[in-house]
């Protein structure tokens, strides 16, 4: 039984466009989402922003309620910002759910905006070097997110026996979806081959340049209402059916792989059970992990691939555009372009788009149920949710 539904979505193409300001993006995404929902602008009663990472000015403006005023949303009763890194959008949707359940708001606008292109490169690196990194026991050694992902990948490859070619094929798979995504930084560009991935510069072993992410600008918005209101509106909608979460540890130093893998498995199973959906009935696994190298491990945890076979499944093209498993149909951050906490928002927009039947060339035929997860920091948690096109 569903309590809330997404009834409107808005999104701008992910790109490096310094002339496109934060507010320029906010106007476009929010107005598109509200118009898409069929709800009048003054009927929006709540606004929740997903905290933008490393952008203190816009973060302050959004946290302190400037958005409803700027957009002329006359019916808004409250405004807030939520932050759990990459897991922020899941929490924004939970807060929307609470506002709707408690009567604070009937309809809630959730939005995210990120502009990386006006930040100097050194500042971009610093933001990602400090986000969730322990300032006493990690940072002084010179670590970064790329290095942390390198540490994880080194160990995963040691334990699973996955070969570099198989790991590189995850990039090829994710980018194959991006090629057909008009809102991707890589729209219309051929996915790189395994050879091209492996011949790109080494950033932090075993992570090559093409196995990391390109920072870009973007934004997206969603309109959330009660499931009952969504049915009354009568248009296509994405209903939230079930959710589950686990916390693993703030620094990956104290996180065993087995704990994460088990948590990914348990949250998936619990979310499915709460939704009353069988695993075989999931049409889309819209996985969010930011870096490609964690995808094989997730595929195994979700039993989409057998144990130890996750990387091979990607290498065989099964998760690619045209393959037999619909997986991360915007290609996660490697496919979309990395917009910080915005990649999670973009994933929810894609889940709603697929369930609404509006994903164009990427449309999963007959998409009824989708798995959507999010995770924060270097993987401190996993929030699994199941969405359906009917309540």
């Amino acid at each position, binding site marked *: 039984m569903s309590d809330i539904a997404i009834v409107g979505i808005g999104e701008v193409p992910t790109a490096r466009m310094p002339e496109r300001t934060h507010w320029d993006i906010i106007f476009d995404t929010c107005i598109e989402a509200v118009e898409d929902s069929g709800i009048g602008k003054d009927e929006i009663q709540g606004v929740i922003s997903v905290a933008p990472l490393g952008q203190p000015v816009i973060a302050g403006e959004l946290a302190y309620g400037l958005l409803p005023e700027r957009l002329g949303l006359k019916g808004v009763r409250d405004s807030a910002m939520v932050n759990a890194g990459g897991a922020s959008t899941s929490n924004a949707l939970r807060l929307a759910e609470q506002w709707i359940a408690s009567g604070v708001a009937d309809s809630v606008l959730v939005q995210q905006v990120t502009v990386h292109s006006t930040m100097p490169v*050194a500042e971009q*690196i*610093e933001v990602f*070097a400090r986000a969730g990194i*322990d*300032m*006493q*026991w*990690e*940072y*002084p*050694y*010179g*670590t*970064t997110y*790329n*290095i*942390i992902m*390198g*540490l*994880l*990948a*080194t*160990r995963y490859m*040691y334990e699973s026996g996955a070969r570099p070619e198989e790991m590189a094929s995850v990039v090829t798979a994710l980018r194959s979806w991006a090629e057909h995504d008009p809102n991707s930084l890589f729209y219309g560009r051929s996915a790189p081959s395994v050879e091209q991935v492996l011949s790109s*510069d*080494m*950033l*932090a*072993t*075993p*992570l090559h340049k093409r196995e*990391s992410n390109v920072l870009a600008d973007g934004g997206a918005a969603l309109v959330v209402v009660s499931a009952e209101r969504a049915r009354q509106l009568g248009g296509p909608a994405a209903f939230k059916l079930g959710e589950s979460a686990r916390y693993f540890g703030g*620094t990956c*130093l*104290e996180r065993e792989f087995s704990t994460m893998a088990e948590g990914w498995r348990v949250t998936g199973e619990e979310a499915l059970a709460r939704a009353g959906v069988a695993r075989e009935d999931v049409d889309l696994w819209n996985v969010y992990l930011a870096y490609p190298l964690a995808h094989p491990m997730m595929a195994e945890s979700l039993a989409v691939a057998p144990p130890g076979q996750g990387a091979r499944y990607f290498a065989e093209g099964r998760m690619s555009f045209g393959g037999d498993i619909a997986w991360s149909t915007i290609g996660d951050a490697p496919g979309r372009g990395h917009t910080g906490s915005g990649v999670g928002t973009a994933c929810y927009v894609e889940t709603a788009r697929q369930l609404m039947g509006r994903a164009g060339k990427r449309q999963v035929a007959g998409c009824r149920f989708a798995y959507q997860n999010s995770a924060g920091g270097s993987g401190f948690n996993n929030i699994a949710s199941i969405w359906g096109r009917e309540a």
Partner: protein
Amino acid sequence: MTKPLPEVQPWTGAFWDGTRQGKLLVQVCHSCTARIFAPRKLCPECWSSDLGWIESAGRGTVYTFSTAYSMVEPAFADDLPFTIAYVDLAEGIRMMTRIVECDPAELAIGMEVDVVFHARGDVRLPYFRPARNGAADE
């Protein structure tokens, strides 16, 4: 460019005093015998404040590692390439560190390593290098 120093907390001063003296200290809980890393104000297992320190023999094994070649903060650019690792100490804790005096191509998970202290300002950071002759105290 100045490299960052550890942001010391009131209960971690002893650890950094130890490294200045060439000692690698491991925090222990006297109530539940837990070995603790990173050091805490209270034991993360039982919340006891009855905590103390033991001196590590300085030997560990590499749990995982990554060698950085680019895209690090400007303050660390002159160190490139450098290797970050998690090392499991014989005393039962795992810490982030750097591996030095080792060709990245020779590095492997499970490799035995010994602590070697590296000065930065008035702090000495515990780095590790491949173990020699099987003696931790060489």
